[in-house]
Each structure stands twice: as structure tokens, then as C-alpha cells.
């Protein structure tokens, strides 16, 4: 009995981590790429190294905090080129819908939405060291949307 329990305890982490890896890989490789502009900067941190802090600058919606909180967006254009974005009403027709997985109120009263799978991958060259460290810079992002609205997205960014 205890032997089976030990076997299960040893197999469980392996199965769990393996399944998680397979799910991540499947999600990552089953999307369609879209180019989404972003606004952000590239801070440098002794522990975290170079990275990018940014928000999406959705064409048609913008990065205005009061405007970026819809629960769903509709993407227009031909992938990877994104022409414009509109707020998607419940049940409205849309060829490329993008739904928020979580939406919450910010202290300022504005709404912050987190879009499932839209945690984009920023290419390393996007976070090249800036001589003006800490200063705000603009980026454009090449997002990689997936066939389904909930698939994850990869993106590459370069300073403009």
C-alpha cells in the first residue's frame, strides 16, 4: 500500500509538470500572429536584467486608461497586420474576437483587462540597453495572435 502511495507521489510531479509543459507548448504553437503597437519603456534592474514595461496601444481604442478596459475586443485586418480594434459587444459578430480573462477596477476608477494569452513575448533585441536609462520610450510590438481568441500571443518589439 505504502509502496503504491510512494509511486503515486513520485509520478504525480512528473505527470503534472509534463502536462503543463505540453499545454504551454500547444497554446504557444497554435496561434496567429498580429502586430500590435505598444507604448512603454525598457527599465534595467540588477536582479531582473533588461525587460520591457509596456501597455498595448490598440489602434482605434488607444492606451487611454479609461478606454482600455473592455471585456472583449474585435480585431480587424489581415494577420499579422492589425488595422483597427473595436470594443466587442456581447454576442456581436466578429472574425477575430479577443476576450479578457479578468477585468478589475483600478484605484483610479478605470478598468484594467487582462487578455488571455496576450502576455506577449518581447524579443530580446527589443530590450536593448538604453543610454537614457529609465526614460520613457515608445515601442511597436509585433504580436502573434492565435487562431482562437483565447490562444496565447507572442510578440516582438523594436524601438521606434
Amino acid at each position, binding site marked *: 500500500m505504502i509502496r503504491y502511495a*510512494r509511486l503515486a*507521489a513520485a509520478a*504525480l510531479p*512528473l505527470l*503534472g509538470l509534463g502536462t503543463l509543459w505540453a499545454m*504551454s507548448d500547444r497554446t*504557444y504553437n497554435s496561434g496567429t500572429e498580429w502586430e500590435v503597437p505598444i507604448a512603454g519603456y525598457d527599465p534595467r534592474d540588477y536582479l531582473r536584467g533588461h525587460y520591457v514595461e509596456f501597455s498595448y496601444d490598440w489602434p482605434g481604442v488607444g492606451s487611454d486608461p479609461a478606454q482600455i478596459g473592455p471585456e472583449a475586443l474585435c480585431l480587424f485586418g489581415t494577420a499579422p497586420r492589425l488595422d483597427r480594434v473595436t470594443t466587442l459587444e456581447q454576442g456581436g459578430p466578429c472574425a477575430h474576437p479577443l476576450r479578457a480573462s479578468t477585468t478589475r477596477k483600478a484605484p483610479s476608477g478605470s478598468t484594467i483587462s487582462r487578455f488571455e494569452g496576450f502576455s506577449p513575448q*518581447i524579443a*530580446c533585441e527589443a530590450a536593448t540597453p538604453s543610454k537614457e536609462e529609465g526614460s520613457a520610450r515608445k515601442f511597436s510590438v509585433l504580436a502573434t495572435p492565435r487562431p482562437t481568441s483565447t490562444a496565447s500571443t507572442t510578440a516582438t518589439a523594436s524601438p521606434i
Partner: protein
Amino acid sequence: MSARKIAEWHEAGLIDAATRDRLAAYEAAHARPLLLWAVWGIGALAIGLGVVSVVAANWEDIPGLVRLAVHLALIAGLLGLLFAREEQLAARSPWAVEALVFVTAALGLTFFGHLGQVYQTASPLWQPLALWLALFVPLLLLTGRSWPSALAVMGGAVWTAWEYVWASSRYGVEPDLGWSIWLALVVALPVLFALLAAWLGGRSPREDFWERLEQLALAYAVAGGSLACAVASFGGFDGPTHALASVLTCGAVLVVGGFAVVLARPGVSGQMAGAIIAGSGLVMPLAYGANDTTIPAAILFFALWAGIGAAALAAQWRRGFQQAVGVIALRLIILSFELAGDLLMNGLGLILAGVMILGVAWGAVRVSKRFAPRAGGEA
């Protein structure tokens, strides 16, 4: 112990030849070549650092899938070794098994971060922590031998609980009554590991592991009770709308957990451990009642720690008693500053404060030495 010393004792007539030979034989059998171990350790550390440096320097050039495969293969190898050789390893050294389990669990935790780096996934921290707990706690509970594994279990549970609460109550959103109770329940739940440890401690050959786990859960409960007193002393319960419901929920979980520990582990030690956990729970609503007061909140704190000291005396926990005396002394010093903070603004006040600190420290050491139980019995 050197052979030279043993020979000197024999020559001085302190031990006879037979004793000398027995001592020499014992020392030879239990020799610990620390210098050799140190050299081995330095060599292994140098190699390890070199490998880490080479991998780190070329990290971006190694394909993500290869890195993940090596990471998972390492975990699989360690899990296989644990499953196939646990008994043999434990017979040679329980610490070898403990180190293997701990390293495996740590590698498992870092695998989540590695996945996130390769696939650029993101999620609230409590989610990977909770999944790690679900995947690795059975292994830790079944094979842990001492405090590192116990710390991994309890630390993981507490970290997950607080991360969940933090992620669920950010952005200034005031939770409603039901949500407040749920969050308080989540925060208090790790204390129930004390019940599990108390129940399994006497039924398992790995007593040290369960004892450590129970101690950690007990420490978490005591930290909760102490924190409630500290929060009350500066009026911290004024902020949240449903603070009373949260406090009552936490307190109820601790009281129920404490009574369950008493039932699960018969004997004075189990009774005292349960009493401390339940007492920590009882203090919480009382601290809410003493909110924004200085002396009543401090008295509650003293009562909690005096109770811990009394329980430590009853159960013959020397370190527990000394810690209780030390904490009470420290709180006394803080209380004096709270009551007479103005004194610190001038030279005479600083002198008086210094004399008082020395006096309290002297009294604490005297009490601790005079009344502390003899070393040997712990929770």
C-alpha cells in the same frame, strides 16, 4: 577527539588501557574527516559554479525545449532515485534523502518559472505555487525527513495563501462579507498542518519531520495571534470593513485546530501544543476588541506569551520557555517606548531607556536561567 589526547589521558592515569583502546576504536569508527570534506566541498563548489557560469553565459543560445527537457529529466532522475533507493539511502544517512527531496521540490518550483520564460506565459503567482503544492506536497509528506522538507511544505502553503489573498484584494477593492471570510479561511488553513503532523507523528518512523512540521504550524499560529495584538496596538482593525468577520474566522480555525491537535496527540506535549494554537486563536477576537489601545493590546500580547511560557514549562520545552521570556522582555521595551516616546528626545531620557533595557534584559536572563526546564524535551 585526537589519539594524542587519549594517549595523554592514559599516561596521566585518568583512563586505563582498556578504556583507551575502546575510545580509540570508537573515534576511529566515528571519525569525521572535516578537512577532507572541506577540500571536497571547495572542489565541488568550484565545479558547480563553473558549470552554472558556462550555462548562464550561453543561456539564450540553448534552445528553450532543450533547457526544459534537461530540467524535467533532472527532476525525473531524482524522483526515480528517490523511489528506487529511498530506504537504502535513508539507512546510510537520512540527510541524503532529505537533500534529494528538497532539491527535487526546488527544481519543480523553478520549472514553472522556466516554462514562463520559454513560452512567455504569465499568471498570478499563487497559481503556480498552488499547483506546485498539489504536485509536490504528497512527495514531501511521504519522504521528508527533517526541517527542510517541513519548511518547504509549510512555507509553500503560507506563501500560496498570502499570495492568493494579495492577488484577490489588490487595487483597493473592498471585499464583501463572504469574500472576507473566505480569504481569512485561506490565510488560516496552513495551521491545519499541525493537526496532520500531530496525528501522523506517533504513527510514522519519520518522527523528526512531523515534529518540525507541527512546530512550524504552531509558530504560524502564534505569529498570527501576535500579529493581531500588534495590529490592535496601532488601530489597524479600523481599515477593513469586515475585519471582525475575518478575525473571527481565523480565530475559529485556530481554536478548532488546537482542540484537534489535543485529541490527535495524547500526552502533555500534544495538549500544550494544542493549547498554544487554540490560545492564539482566542487572542484574535480579543485583540479586535482592544483595537487602537496601547496598554490593553500589550496586555493581550503578554497574556499570549505568558501562556506560551507556561505551556513550555508544563511540557518541559526549554527553548520554548526561553523564547517566551525573551519576547515578553522585547515587548516590554517596545511598550515603554510607546508610553514614553518623548523621553527619547533628550539625553536623560536616552540614559533612562538604556538602563531600563539593560534591566529588562538582565531580568529576562535571570528568569530564563532560573525557571527554564532542563534541555532535552522539545515539542
